[in-house]
């Protein structure tokens, strides 16, 4: 009995999970030390961890502005999902076609090259002017954030397909259209997914930026409200949820990646 317990403990210590958990606990401990225990930071600047947890609990039950906490979370989630969905639906096909058809590349590239370096948040004023302060303007900003990294990666994925594979397909009797769908697209999937991952990360930043500037709901709104009302615990609540949302989104894409790139060497 004690032997097997020892074994389990041994395993726990060897597992990197143990290190990861300790690091989170350590972080909370330091936070607790500088706030509550040593009082190095006044609560108005940095609230203690238990105050933040209490705020989270409270806001799940009581509304902040128009919504309770999960209402804000839901609104942000809808914005990021619609924005990401539209961006991927546009960027992936366009990237594939630009990579494959040189004429389309020549037409589209100059415009994309100029638009691409513009930070997505620079579009916020125009987005509000065009779409108001509702869902559409946030979706637009997120769309821009997700669109360009996905487009560029998809384009490069198509451009850098091993020419040998294309030659092999040609000498086996495949025509251009077959080669695009049977060889070029599957071969570029790893880079497309990598682009999606970068894109969604950027999309999260755009979400918060858009909600900071013009919104009466969403996690970004909570963050800015916490600043305005001198309630940093509210800002931190919003930040934690954004962080968790980003983490979950990234894990989902990693799962998708493993599923669609099953044929790659580990």
């Amino acid at each position, binding site marked *: 009995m004690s032997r097997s317990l020892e074994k389990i403990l041994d395993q726990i210590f060897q597992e990197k999970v143990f290190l990861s958990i300790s690091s989170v606990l350590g972080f909370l401990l330091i936070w607790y030390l500088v706030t509550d225990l040593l009082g190095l930071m006044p609560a108005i600047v940095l609230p203690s961890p238990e105050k933040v947890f209490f705020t989270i609990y409270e806001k799940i039950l009581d509304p902040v502005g128009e919504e309770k906490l999960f209402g804000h979370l839901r609104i942000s989630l809808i914005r990021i999902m619609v924005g990401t969905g539209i961006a991927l639906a546009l960027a992936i096909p366009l990237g594939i076609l630009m990579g494959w058809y040189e004429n389309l590349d020549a037409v589209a590239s100059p415009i994309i090259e100029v638009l691409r370096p513009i930070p997505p948040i620079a579009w916020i004023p125009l987005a509000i002017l065009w779409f108001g302060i509702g869902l559409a303007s946030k979706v637009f900003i997120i769309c821009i954030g997700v669109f360009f990294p996905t487009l560029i990666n998809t384009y490069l994925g198509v451009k850098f397909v091993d020419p040998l594979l294309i*030659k092999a397909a040609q*000498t*086996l*009797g*495949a025509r251009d259209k077959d080669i695009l769908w049977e060889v070029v697209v599957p*071969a570029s999937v790893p880079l497309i997914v990598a682009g999606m991952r970068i894109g969604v990360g950027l999309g999260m930043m755009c979400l918060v930026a858009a909600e900071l500037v013009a919104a009466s709901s969403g996690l970004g709104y909570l963050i800015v409200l916490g600043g305005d009302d001198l309630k940093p615990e509210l800002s931190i609540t919003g930040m934690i949820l954004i962080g968790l949302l980003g983490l979950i989104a990234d894990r989902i894409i990693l799962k998708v990646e493993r599923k669609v790139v099953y044929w790659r*060497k580990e």
Partner: protein
Amino acid sequence: MSESPMVNNQLNGKLVALNVSIVYEKNKKSFLAVDKVSLTIQEGEFVVIVGPSGCGKTTFMNTFAGLLRPTKGKVYMDGQEITGPSAERGVVFQQFALFPWKTVFENIEFGLKYRGIPKEQREEIVRKYIHLIKLEGFEHAYPHELSGGMKQRVAIARVYANRPQVLLMDEPFGALDAQTRTIMQEDLSEMFLAEKRTVLFITHSVDEAIYLGDRVVIMTARPGKIKRIIPITRDNLIPERRKMGYEEVVNRREFLELKNEIWGLIKAEILEKHIL
């Protein structure tokens, strides 16, 4: 795809190259890779090209594949000019070129789909070739799960299953270890006997060239020209060699004499052009 047939005596043969020259552009300098090569390969013939590294063997073969247009001269199949790739001229590449996201089965099936062969028939053909390359049980494996020798067998089966009239093989066994290579050579010999095709085969190995070829074409160092063509079959050298094991053949006196002769020609070429 091809132009009107212009059959004349010169173009009699399965594959014909007429005065093919290929100029390469590299770093804004152009140099001659292949210099006025003419070669006729008859239907059902197994022709092997040997020559020093960088002599333009692969470049020359690519013109038959339709993957490269000669700078000067023309290449023909059945008297028709070759203007692009075709399923009738299957290529086995040195680096396997399997589709990594497709299984062994799907790789071998690839060309059959574009030939309009119905599904049940495709399955039957693929099973037959998986049996021929002794990969039963690996139908659903992906290329990254296979050894080099297995990959190359799949690459060969993929082209064989497609039933091209001509097989172009570019150092297909170059990346394999000696034992696997011997087995592959024997397999190929066996497969060639079972389903005679026209084959153009490139290799560095003189042994391999004599064991497999009806004729061995020796090319010069860059620019590539034909230095000599040695008939193997016509001299009736070991007529049954394709039915014999590799080790048995390469130790025969006739084989060794031929090997010396060919090696002499290649060595002379290397020394003369100061390649080493």
